[in-house]
């Protein structure tokens, strides 16, 4: 006698035998981007750097409000004025944020302007106040500032330049150009990289071979001389805005190679996958297969490596503008500001003109660390 075959009449619920805890369930159901976010969040340094970058980029939306002066406001009585520091206490008494007033004297020996602090002039700073009027993004008149110089006083947090323009305000405005040039550049090089790398990877054969050669050539070339040559070629009569875009394109022209390589090598392996053949058999066009089926699979990697190449562009712009081949005034970027610090006298006499280098270093460091974290998080299934 064998035991009778028994099947339960109850409906079978597969979840009853492999129940997931809510946490597990949340993890398994999370999308790729969610997983990436969770992984990135664990990378403390990357998050901090991301926040700093976000703040920087947010600041360029409100440069006019943050800067106490306008980009081109000249304070002719205060040429090459050293930075004024903010004090809280005057002779042991709490006053709130204030600056001491300045006297002016000319050192007749070396013809240097001196601005000694006048300890009797206590000038409290004004906050959320009406100051220099500006056109917000060129759209409408406004006078609102976060901080304004005191009544009848000045507030040069980082000193002034040879025309008496406030360095802090100029650096704030300069961020607008310096930070966007990296982003616009990366968008252009992204497009180049995906299209060229995509073609090479998808078609292989001689297309691939020639693209590979080209990439090798471009990579073996020292970047800066080539950038210099290309930007020297930009017509002199172009408007500053056109020059801005010209420089961006030039920076991007040499930068796409890394991305193209990544796209190519990924595509070479992915195009052998079954889902790719399936799409091909169903009659999808190469453009659709690449854009719809293959690219999304490693988009996160591309974004991470793109983040890592932004710093090179920002440094490139700075170097070109410093040499006088890049952006030209009145467009103001950090590089243009540093162009004025070309002289060794500046280091000796007016070292505060070197301050624009601080945001450059900060942004480049944070971009590197943030990009590193992003790259680690880019493959959340590992």
């Amino acid at each position, binding site marked *: 006698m064998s035991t009778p075959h028994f099947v339960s009449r109850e409906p079978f619920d597969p979840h009853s035998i492999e129940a997931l805890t809510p946490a597990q369930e949340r993890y398994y159901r999370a999308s790729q981007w969610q997983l990436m976010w969770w992984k990135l969040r664990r990378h403390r340094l990357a998050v901090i750097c991301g926040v700093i970058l976000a703040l920087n980029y947010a600041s360029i939306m409100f440069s006019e409000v943050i800067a106490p002066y306008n980009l081109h406001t000249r304070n002719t009585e205060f040429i090459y004025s050293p930075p004024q520091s903010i004090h809280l206490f005057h002779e042991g008494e709490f006053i709130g944020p204030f600056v001491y007033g300045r006297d002016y004297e000319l050192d007749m020996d070396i013809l240097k302007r001196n601005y000694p602090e006048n300890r009797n002039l206590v000038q409290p700073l004004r906050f959320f106040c009406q100051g220099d009027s500006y056109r917000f993004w060129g759209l409408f008149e406004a006078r609102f500032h976060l901080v304004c110089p005191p009544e009848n006083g000045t507030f040069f947090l980082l000193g002034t330049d040879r025309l008496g323009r406030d360095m802090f305000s100029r650096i704030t405005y300069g961020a607008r150009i310096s930070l966007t040039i990296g982003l616009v550049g990366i968008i252009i090089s992204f497009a180049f990289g995906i299209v060229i790398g995509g073609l090479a990877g998808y078609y292989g054969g001689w297309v691939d071979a020639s693209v590979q050669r080209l990439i090798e050539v471009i990579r073996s*070339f020292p970047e*800066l*001389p*080539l950038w210099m*040559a290309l930007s020297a070629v930009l017509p002199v009569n172009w408007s500053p805005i056109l020059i801005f875009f010209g420089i961006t394109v030039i920076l991007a022209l040499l930068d796409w190679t890394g991305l193209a390589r990544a796209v190519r090598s990924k595509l070479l392996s992915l195009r052998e996958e079954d889902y790719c053949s399936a799409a091909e058999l169903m009659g999808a066009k190469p453009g659709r297969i690449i854009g719809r089926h293959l690219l999304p699979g490693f988009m996160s990697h591309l974004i991470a490596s793109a983040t890592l190449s932004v710093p090179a562009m920002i440094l490139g712009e700075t170097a070109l503008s410093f040499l006088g081949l890049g952006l030209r005034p009145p467009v103001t970027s950090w590089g243009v500001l*540093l162009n004025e610090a070309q002289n060794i006298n500046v280091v000796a006499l007016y070292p505060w003109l070197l301050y624009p280098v601080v945001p*450059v*270093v900060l942004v480049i*460091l944070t971009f590197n660390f943030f990009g590193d974290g992003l790259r680690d998080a880019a493959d959340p299934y590992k």
Partner: protein
Amino acid sequence: MLTYILRRILTMIPTLLVISVLVFVIIQLPPGDYLESHIAELQSQGESVDEQKIAFLREQYGLDKPMPQQYLKWLFGMLQGDFGYSFEYELPVTEVVGDRLFLTVLISIATILFTWMIAFPIGIYSATHQYSWGDYGLSTLGFLGLATPNFLLALVMLYFANVYFGTSIGGLMDPEYIDAPWSVDKLISILEHLWIPVVVIGTSGTAGMIRRLRANLLDELQKQYVITGRAKGLPPGKLLAKYPLRVALNFFVADIGNLLPTVISGAEIVAVVMSLPTTGPILLSALQSQDMYLAGSFLMFLALLTVFGVLVSDIALAMLDPRIRLGGGSK
């Protein structure tokens, strides 16, 4: 080995050809040919134009011919050692370039040696002490070097070298030695000036090298032979020096390919700031005055330098690492 070198040199030729096309396109980009702009410039300054010379040069460089023909003429001229004519200096380009290229090579080699000297110990330390404070600290320092614009560092160091060591500002030697014959004092003076550009350029490449060396060594350290060595009781220092380090050394030679473009780029801009008698300042002034043949030849020289440097490093690598020449041979 010989076949490897031969094949490596043969692949260099198409690379150089593509580079020459790129450079030629750049030379041709400014509107009008360079003679026209030169004439216009002379006339605007009220100087007379030597018609005969212009006609001769126009003939010499085939400027009235179509583009491809001009290119070929330029290319074959270069192969025969005629790199074109500089209008600013009114000299053949080769004479302008002269020692400057040699000095660029000198600074580049010194910089690479410096980078190695810094990156090697730091890379090893970072890999063997992964995630320690030292690792983080040194990496951050390296990054700081990467993030600081070269030109500014050069400017600041120039100033402090002048204040603390009394080094003369600018140039590669004290002024009194410039036309002096070679002597020990002149050499010392050059060395006194050389370290600033070397350190400044070196800082930008060091971070990348440290990171790549660290990653490479970390990969090696996880391999089985290291575990075996450790299991049979080799002291850690000896184990490191005997095996993984030697493998990582190969990479050091191979990495020149990555380092060289950065070094030469850096050398250009630092040379401009410090007015070193290298290619940098002349390239810049040639570009600014659109003396395009001079600029083009400079670009070509720099590219040649890079490609040749990579070739040398590849050959050195093939000598060090049999896997490369054998692997290449079976292809």
